[in-house]
Structures are given as C-alpha cells and as structure tokens.
C-alpha cells in the first residue's frame, strides 16, 4: 500500500468492503425512510392493561347494551392512548407523522377500524352483539397487518395473532367472547407492547 503509485487501482478486496458498507448505508436509509418505527410499545402495553380492566368490569354487566357500553368506552380510551403515545414517540425520534411511512401506516390502519365501527353499529341494531368479539379481533388484526406493512416486522406478526384469535372466536360459544377479548386486546397487546418497547425504543 505504501509504495503504490498515486494512480493505481486500490486493492479490490478493500474496494469491495467499502462498497458493501455503502450498500448497507443505502439499504438502511431506505428502510428508515419507508417504515414507520414510532409504533407505541409501552403505549400498547397500557392499552392491554386497560382492556383487561374493561374485561373484568364487563363480566358484571347486566345487559348486552351495558356490556357494549363498557367496551365502547374502552375502545375510545385505547384510541386515545394509542394516538397520544404514537405522537409522543414520533416527536421523541423526530419522525414526521403526516409524511412518508407514518402517513401510509395511519392511512392503511384506518379503513378496517372504520369498518369495525360500522359493523358494530349494524350488529347492535340487529341484536347480534354476541358476534362482536370475534369481529373486533379480526378487524383490528386486519388493520394492524395492513398498517404493519409500513412498519417494523413485529407489527404485522402481532396483527396475524389478532386475526387468528378473532377467527377462532367467531366459531366458539358466544359466552366465551369476553374471555377472547381479554386474551387479545389484553394479553396479546401487552406481550407485543413489551416486545416492541424493548426492541424499538419505547
């Protein structure tokens, strides 16, 4: 290396390792620019705890409407926790929320959730609230799988977990519904929330 004249071609092995380094930089930059990383870990865990609480309270409900009221309140609470913790995490990492991957994540997350809200209203009017737990889990899972396409890999995996749980729930006795909700929105959400928090910075 020392004696080499100025215009010589550098050592190919060295060149290759620099090229690898550069390719890695490009790949990482593209990944960062195309996946939404501010998914709330601890926020998800808190949502899970609130869902377990709601499950506990809802077992004492005296009517189907009262049961539904408790879960709707829990849904609003969970959305508020989610929105707040996503915003906080995005701000902490300096990630824009309404551009690029974050925007795509939120836009794909929303339609299945809107479908869930509408289905809830229709089933309540038809007096079919026993079907709700399975449908909620299935549609929430769909939303997370879809949105997760623009996020870190663990997110769509979590969504698949919810979809499976929802699918099983739809074909189980209606009286198991609350237990399924506790298992999904409670336990599953907490487990993945903690995993995300540990691996992806909160």
């Amino acid at each position: 290396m020392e004696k080499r004249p100025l215009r010589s071609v550098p050592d190919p092995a060295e060149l290759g390792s620099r090229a690898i380094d550069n390719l890695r930089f490009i790949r990482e930059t593209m990944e960062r620019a195309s996946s939404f990383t501010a998914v709330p870990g601890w926020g998800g865990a808190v949502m899970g705890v609130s869902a377990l609480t709601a499950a506990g309270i809802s077992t004492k409900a005296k009517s189907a409407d009262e049961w539904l009221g408790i879960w709707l309140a829990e849904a609003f609470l969970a959305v508020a926790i989610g929105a707040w913790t996503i915003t906080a995490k995005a701000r902490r990492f300096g990630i824009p929320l309404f551009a690029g991957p974050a925007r795509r994540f939120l836009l794909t997350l929303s339609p299945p959730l809107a479908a869930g809200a509408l289905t809830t209203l229709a089933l309540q009017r038809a007096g079919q609230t026993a079907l709700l737990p399975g449908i909620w889990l299935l549609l929430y899972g769909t939303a997370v799988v879809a949105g997760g396409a623009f996020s870190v890999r663990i997110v769509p995996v979590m969504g698949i977990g919810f979809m499976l749980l929802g699918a099983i729930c739809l074909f189980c006795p209606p009286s198991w519904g609350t237990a399924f909700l506790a298992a999904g929105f409670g336990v599953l959400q907490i487990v993945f929330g903690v995993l995300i928090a540990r691996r992806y910075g909160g």
Partner: protein
Amino acid sequence: MARSLAEKSHAPKPGAAGPPARKALPDLDRVIHERVRLAIVSTLAVNEKLSFNELKGLLGTTDGNLSVHARKLEEAGYLACAKSFEGRLPKTEYRLTAEGKRAFEKYVAHLAALVGRGRIR
C-alpha cells in the same frame, strides 16, 4: 515540491473532504456518492415526494446541510424542487427526476459490481 513529496509517501490521496475510508472508489457518480446526498436520494427513492421539513425530519440533518446538498443534486438534474405557499409559509417539495432515479440505480449497480469483483467472504 510539496506535491512530489506527497506522491512519494502517501498512497492514500491527500486533500478531499470526508473520512479516508470513503475515498478511492473509482468512477463512481460523485454527485450521489457524498453521504448526505446519498441519504437524500435513497430516501426519495422510496417516497414519491417530500417537503423540505419532512426530508429534514427523516434524515435528521440541519437546514443548512440539507439545502446545500439538495441544491447540488438539483444542479445535477437529479432532484426536482417545487416551491409553493401553504398559507403564508413557503413550502419546498422535492422529488427525484427520471434522471435522478437512473443515476441512483446506476450507482447501486456499480457498487454491487464492485462487491462482486472484490469477492468478499
């Protein structure tokens, strides 16, 4: 005099900014090769268009740094920049031109070829 001395004793080329490990890749597109510009192009390769602030947020760079390097890319014809107003605030939006996309693909292909030639591991 100083020049001939440098030629004799230093194999790694003197001058030129940037850490030494990043020099001496031959014939690579110099406009794209610089780190900040490479990051801008890589980011816009996966986002159709981004405003100045969005790009700044994604890259975690400063205003000055971003505008200097974005201008270099613009001058090379790799970046298209549209200026508009959002209310009273000026808004600058960037996107890659067709030429910019081609240049990026060529640059990546070039690196891949170098990796092949080096036969690393």
